[in-house]
């Protein structure tokens, strides 16, 4: 068919890889902000807020990301909102990431030993002060390794955004393959590219985990 793999094809794949990174960043920032709100809502003193956020987490975690992406793209179009594939993919991934990060972070916040909450209460700190000055600084240390680990999942999961026509790494590979028809070579390149993006994150996560392991005695009073 259309000749051999050349520099232009690789440039196109490179562009796709940049969009994969871009979409991952959007998903992590959007999902991080919403996820933080979810984590706080899950431990809210108000029962209705706790239930609502728990339902959200269960719904998202029980739905394949692929379906969420279709719902975001076609569902919004069906109700008359014409959204770009970037917007649809960014919004869907944000909702998806928020549910998982929210749940990871809730666990981390609650794993700060209860006596720490009581000591902060006993000093007359307000709920916000207790959270900001006592609990979160300790929870962040616990949360860093699993959060970085989850980022690897996100980078890989952005490949699903290709189904709504968003040209990230996976989709750009499909397009190049449509003209060259060398699927094994092209998907091998794509696999290696994903690995090159994810492996440093995995290494970083492992390194963090080792470091946190050493500092564990810092977390709970002796």
């Amino acid at each position, binding site marked *: 068919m259309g000749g051999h793999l050349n520099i232009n094809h690789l440039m196109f794949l490179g562009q796709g890889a940049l969009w994969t990174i871009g979409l991952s960043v959007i998903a992590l920032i959007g999902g991080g902000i919403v996820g933080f709100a979810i984590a706080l809502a899950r431990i809210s003193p108000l029962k209705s807020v706790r239930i609502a956020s728990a339902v959200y987490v269960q719904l998202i975690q029980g739905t394949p990301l692929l379906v969420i992406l279709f719902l975001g793209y076609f569902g919004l179009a069906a109700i008359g909102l014409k959204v770009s594939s970037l917007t649809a993919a960014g919004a869907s991934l944000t909702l998806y990431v928020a549910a998982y990060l929210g749940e990871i972070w809730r666990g981390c916040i609650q794993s700060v030993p209860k006596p*720490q909450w009581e000591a902060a209460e006993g*000093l*007359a700190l307000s709920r916000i002060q207790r959270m900001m000055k006592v609990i979160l600084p300790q929870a962040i240390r616990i949360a860093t390794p699993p959060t970085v680990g989850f980022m690897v999942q996100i980078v890989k999961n952005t490949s699903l955004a290709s189904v709504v026509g968003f040209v990230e790494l996976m989709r750009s590979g499909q397009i190049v393959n449509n003209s060259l028809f060398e699927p094994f070579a092209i998907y091998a390149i794509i696999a290696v590219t994903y690995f090159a993006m994810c492996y440093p994150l995995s290494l970083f996560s492992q390194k963090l985990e080792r470091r946190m392991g050493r500092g564990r005695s810092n977390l709970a009073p002796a």
Partner: protein
Amino acid sequence: MQQPPSSEPIVSLRDVQKSFGPLLVLDGVSFAVERGEVLALIGRSGSGKSTALRCIDRFEKVDGGEIVVCGHRVDRPDVDLRALRQDVGIVFQSYNLFPHLTIEQNITLAPCAVKGLAASQAKDLARKVLAQVGLEEKLHAYPEQLSGGQQQRAAIARSLAMQPKVMLFDEVTSALDPELTAEVLKVIEQLAADGMTMVMVTHEMGFAKGIADRIVFMHRGKVHETGPASILTTPTTPELTQFVGTGNLKS
């Protein structure tokens, strides 16, 4: 918050009831603590003494009865918890210093955040309260760098920095070996000598005898016997006799 007249007790519990599920832990507990008084709550594990102490600072909500602490109606749902906890200091068995902060930051956190103290004033205050517990040189250390006894003394200093009107001690030496226990008890003795009002749950019978103005012996959720420290030497109920007997064996 208004100061109660000097004749009013600082802490008073009247007919306090508290259950955890089907388990009745406080069954009509009443006692009062006058200004400058040191009250020791003693009794077996499960007798309700720690729960009674925690009710004073409203770490537990009571099911019935009346608790008044420095003029705050602690039993009422609308009690201003932050105002209450500025008047009451509490020290726990497990110290509960904040591990991510230095000792100085542990101490200055609440005075700055709650009372709006300037950073420089708060640092002076930290030095002052650390001197009181004999730990001036540990200002910039982290909790994990301190021994258990030092951590507990730092926790007492942190509490003192809020200038409470009454201090609660919840088995503060139970996690310490005898030598470290002694250094913490010395600090508490000095506080008592300085006139601090204190309620302490303790298993140190010798210490209770030496420092307490009054003993409240709890048994099965009730105040079983109460009186001056001498009741430990001449108990009138068989339960206290037995309890003191075992306590003496331990020490």
